[in-house]
């Protein structure tokens, strides 16, 4: 069986990280977080990596965290310790290379929070975006309560986070949740152009870094 996250580095130094669990709409489970952690550390330490592009295999970028694994940590303390020791989202926010997200289908929960740690977000026009954690009696926990109000106007962020309701590309573009929305058939081309652009220029973070 293929790994649920794949890493490939091309001759330009562009690392492509693919969420590869399409049968579960790329719901991010612990195995995927472990691989993301490993791959992002490798990208950070690899002298040739100049940019990282995130994509999802199948119908969605990612429908969010794998909820079937919620509540399986041995204790709250263990959960907190693990989170601080292996701070995947903090690692993303500290990487010294530009991060580009290729977004399509559903970008829900952690599937939106991961792109929110990126500098450039390019989406297909029919993408749906949401932070629906409050529907589970929970709040975004991959940085979304902090990255979203620093990315889009905070009143709009409060609406998304408090209601948990999805928005489409029109709202996403209006508020800067995505930098560009294109017809689905042109998504790869637009992402490639965005990657070329970040490779061409000096690195200017598109969002606050740690």
């Amino acid at each position: 069986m293929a790994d649920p996250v794949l890493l490939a580095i091309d001759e330009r130094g562009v690392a492509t990280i693919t969420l590869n669990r399409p049968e579960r709409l790329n719901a991010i489970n612990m195995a995927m977080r472990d691989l993301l952690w490993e791959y992002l550390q490798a990208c950070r330490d690899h002298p040739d990596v100049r940019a990282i592009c995130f994509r999802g295999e199948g119908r969605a970028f990612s429908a969010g965290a794998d909820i079937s694994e919620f509540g399986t940590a041995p204790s709250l303390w263990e959960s907190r310790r693990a989170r601080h020791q292996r701070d995947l989202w903090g690692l993303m926010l500290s990487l010294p290379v530009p991060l580009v997200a290729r977004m399509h289908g559903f970008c829900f929960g952690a599937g939106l929070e991961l792109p929110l740690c990126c500098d450039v977000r390019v989406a297909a026009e029919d993408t749906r975006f949401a932070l629906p954690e409050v529907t589970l009696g929970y709040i975004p926990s991959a940085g979304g309560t902090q990255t979203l109000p620093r990315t889009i106007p905070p009143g709009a962020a409060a609406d998304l986070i408090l209601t948990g309701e999805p928005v489409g590309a029109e709202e996403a573009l209006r508020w800067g949740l995505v930098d560009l929305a294109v017809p689905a058939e042109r998504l790869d081309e637009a992402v490639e152009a965005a990657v070329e652009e970040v490779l061409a220029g000096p690195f200017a973070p598109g969002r606050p870094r740690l």
Partner: protein
Amino acid sequence: MDAIGTVAVGRGASADGIVEALEGFAEGGARVAVVEWGEDAELAGWPGDRVRWLWRDYPLPAVFAFEGRLAGAGASLALGCDLRVCGEGASIALDGSSLDGLTAARARTLLRLGDGEPVPASLPAGEALEAGLVSRVGAEGTAGEVARGAAEAIAARGPIATRLAKEAVWRGLDLPLEQALRLETDLTLLLQATKDRAEGVRAFLEKRPPDFSGE
């Protein structure tokens, strides 16, 4: 007590009366407050400390609905709320020079203005939506309905989660990102110990609507 507490601001309203109504909602078990600004609304003042009280200390998410031209104390009251919605013919006037410090600071936060950038004097609904000062715009005359739609969504969510989400968003925004992320982590850990979160996950996996008790 209904899950949605609605205060209609009309002729002769007082700031104390609005605060009393809002506090009553929170104490009575409502999950969200709606402030409906009526066409005949009168409010002598809504000072900066009450603007801050609304977003920082008032526990419930609050949705503000308005039509027509919103100015003065009404605009200040709106700034304090978490969500603002309006009809498409509405506008909001924020006379930057007359706002007190806390109110101006809130306006600057919501409009993401940098140092030295002036608070715009007046924003019609479309521009307010572009700027994210309002997050939903309905047809003229439907602001109350739009507000109830947002409030119904919030009321259906886990009530501890929506309170902590409000705290995370507004308290976090003032913190350096690293500390803000730690705040989020600690609030999520608090939620992991709630019955609501367990119910939310169970309901999702059983493909049924959750029944949140607020515990």
